[in-house]
């Protein structure tokens, strides 16, 4: 990436000489996935001209926005060498929380959104403490948290979804309703075109990219993910960073949940498991983008876009859902073969 070097490349560093002649491999590795993306767009564009309309591309962005936001959050935990399985459940919990606050407590937009973000941060904090202080392995702690939240979010309504006028477990009727401002988060379109969720996604993607790639905090997080011991010995407050990563992940997931609630307009009972898998897929595909080979925010965003475009195009072409799953899997595997198989990283 850096055209660095004060000294001329020394003779016994063979890897510095790569640039002589046209090297196909590194280019294939670096741009393979992006090329595939472009080809895919071109193909769908030819097959179905309306695919390439601005409106449709906005639709694609909108459809990936929530997954992308979750994926960006989980990327932060991947960077510090962790993994957050609870994001789907956090999003579902946040969906229920915001609905509950507005519909049952009659709360306003700010209260609803604020409570969700607080819940996300709190869950992230608890995850982080379980992992850092009690040294529960990441997967295990967040899996436990996932089950816990899946149950917890249904307890207040006894498994009912939340809508204005619903009957509460105690027999009374909920009097609140979704506020217009809250619904606007899901429905208002800037310039009558771009939904707010897309803007939120773009903003968060930019934020986390800058954070991870260009700030010293990001550097330290990568260092922790690569060699926690060395980072600790170099003076990094490893615990604090790891907890912070889980809090980022929790907050992002809760933002996803808020946008979901605003779009759906009710507190839908859902496990969020599909969100989890799609977000994880996006974050992992991100490894392959630009041959990064490690978690990175830009890659995650492109990974989410990749899946979104693919599914949108296939839906336009009337492919049934199972064929979409199949093609999604096949394209994923093929793209990864391309990227990882060609890169000759040493093992």
């Amino acid at each position, binding site marked *: *990436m*850096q055209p*660095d*070097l*004060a*000294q*001329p*490349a*020394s*003779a*016994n*560093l*063979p*890897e*510095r000489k790569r640039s002589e002649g046209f090297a196909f491999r590194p280019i294939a590795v670096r741009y393979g996935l992006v090329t595939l993306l472009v080809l895919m767009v071109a193909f769908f564009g030819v097959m179905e001209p309306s695919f390439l309309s601005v409106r449709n591309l906005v639709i694609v962005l909108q459809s990936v926005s929530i997954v992308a936001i979750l994926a960006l959050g989980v990327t932060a935990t991947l960077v510090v060498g962790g993994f957050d399985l609870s994001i789907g459940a956090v999003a579902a919990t946040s969906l229920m929380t915001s609905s509950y606050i507005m519909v049952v407590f009659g709360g306003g937009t700010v209260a609803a959104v604020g409570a969700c973000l607080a819940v996300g941060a709190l869950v992230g904090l608890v995850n982080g403490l379980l992992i850092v202080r009690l040294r529960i392995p990441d997967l295990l702690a967040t899996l436990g948290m996932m089950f816990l939240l899946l149950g917890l979010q249904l307890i207040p309504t006894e498994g009912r979804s939340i809508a204005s006028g619903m009957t509460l477990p105690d027999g009374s009727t909920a009097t609140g309703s979704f506020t217009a401002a809250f619904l606007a988060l899901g429905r208002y379109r800037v310039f009558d075109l771009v939904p707010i969720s897309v803007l939120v996604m773009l903003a968060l993607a930019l934020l986390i990219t800058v954070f991870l790639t*260009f*700030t*010293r*905090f*990001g*550097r*330290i997080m*990568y*260092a922790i*993910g*690569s*060699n926690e*011991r*060395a*980072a*600790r*010995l*170099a*003076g*990094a*407050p490893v615990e604090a960073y790891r907890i912070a990563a889980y809090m980022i992940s929790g907050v992002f997931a809760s933002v996803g949940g808020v946008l979901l609630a605003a779009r759906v307009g009710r507190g839908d009972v859902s496990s969020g498991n599909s969100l989890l898998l799609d977000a994880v897929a996006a974050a992992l595909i991100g490894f392959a983008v630009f041959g990064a080979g*490690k978690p990175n925010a830009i890659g995650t965003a492109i990974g989410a876009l990749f899946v979104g475009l693919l599914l949108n195009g296939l839906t336009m072409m009337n492919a049934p859902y199972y064929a979409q799953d199949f093609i999604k899997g096949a394209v994923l595997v093929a793209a990864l073969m391309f990227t990882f198989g060609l890169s000759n990283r*040493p093992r």
Partner: protein
Amino acid sequence: MALEGVTKSFGASAVLKGVDLFLRAGEIVAFMGANGAGKSTLVKIVAGVHDLSGGAMRLDGRPFQPSSPSDALRHGIVVVHQAINDNVVLSMDVLENLCIDRLCRGGPVLFRRGRWRAEAQAMAARVGLDVPLNTPVSELSLADRQMVAIARALGHDPKLLILDEPTSALSDAEAERLFRVVLDLKRRGVPVLYISHRMGDIRRLADRIVTLRDGVVTGDFAPPLDYGAAVQAMLGRQLAKASHARVPGGEVVVETRDLRVSAESPPVSLSLRTCEVTAVVGLVGAGKTELAECLFGARRPAAGAIRLDGRPFAPASPGAAVAAGVHMAAEDRAGASLVPDFDLSQNVSLPFTRAFSSLGLLGRSAERRHAADFVRRLGIVAPSEIAPMSALSGGNQQKVVLARWLSRPCRLLILDEPFQGVDIAARRDIGQALRDTAEARATLVLCADLDEAAEVADRILVMSQGAVVSEHFAGSLDREAVIRDLSKSTHAERHAA
């Protein structure tokens, strides 16, 4: 800095039993002790990695109790730890590694490489580290990684510098550059605690020697330094004079013909015989490890041929090499040899599980007996033969690696930097054990340090830039000549280029 009655125990085993130690400004204190004496433990207490179990520490007269490594760093205590991979982040490049601790301490939020480049270059230049700043550290040799760690440590303005066996992976040239910087720091009044098993280093640097044995300080030697007495205080016994007569080689076991480890490297032709211990010395980056890897099937040579017992030998993998009777103790102990989740006995038996199993089922007691035997024979300091690796000191971990590869007969035994972190006495014993068992196999030892090589070898090959440039023999060893041959060094060439 002063330590008063510091004790430390892990569970029930007391490692430090009341250590008193003080460091004055501008003084280099050599800290000597046999493997497992507790040196690194002490270092880690000062560095805020471990809490102490008892006693107290003072820094500048004030009580000092670092709660974490970052706390110790803030107090100006800079440490290069013994385990090299604890000092570097492999996935990051040299520049990032050089400035990571600074990033942890604060500074502008945005990380811009440009801002750090000049500084990193200065840090690298100070220790003569000569690699592009954007090289990922994972691509560096162990020695260069060590140099990165040292460069970072020296780049601070430390209040106290602690170097825990910094030269174990270095050859004389790098070590000399390190010494110059350390001496420079000393002149500026920085106290240095220097831990090493190399007498050469200690002779060069030490103002004072403190010896540690089994967790207690057994000697504090002020100038004029009596090295013999220090060694005795550290070991609790006299060290026998080491000298051996050259044993001539028997039949040829391994032969390489015009072997090129990579397309650019020169051809290497050598033959290794039974009975004889051959050492290859060369500066860091001379290509010793690469040669060994070719013989062991861990690297595919670019050209040339190897013959084992007269038959062509082209191992496709280390597995094939082991099956053919070629054993190699790799250079990177933590990365390439030890399995952290395994206990001592499991680490010893790893390549030879077949020998301890019938019908695929492992015989645990035979495995443990075997390991216990080697614990005794190599003097490994460990709670038991089923101790986890994390409970062993660095030198003792190295002995476990050696025990592994010495534990079965073989045709060719390759030891790449086998004496990293091994104390003087143990080095003698292991050298003796090597020589005693050399009869039935060819033995190849790769060392950056000439003293180590001379202690064990019958024949010494000097390697420079991938080529074997001269051959010397024990008994008639002309050190000056060897050093001259060595100094046609890679680094000299590199600088010339």
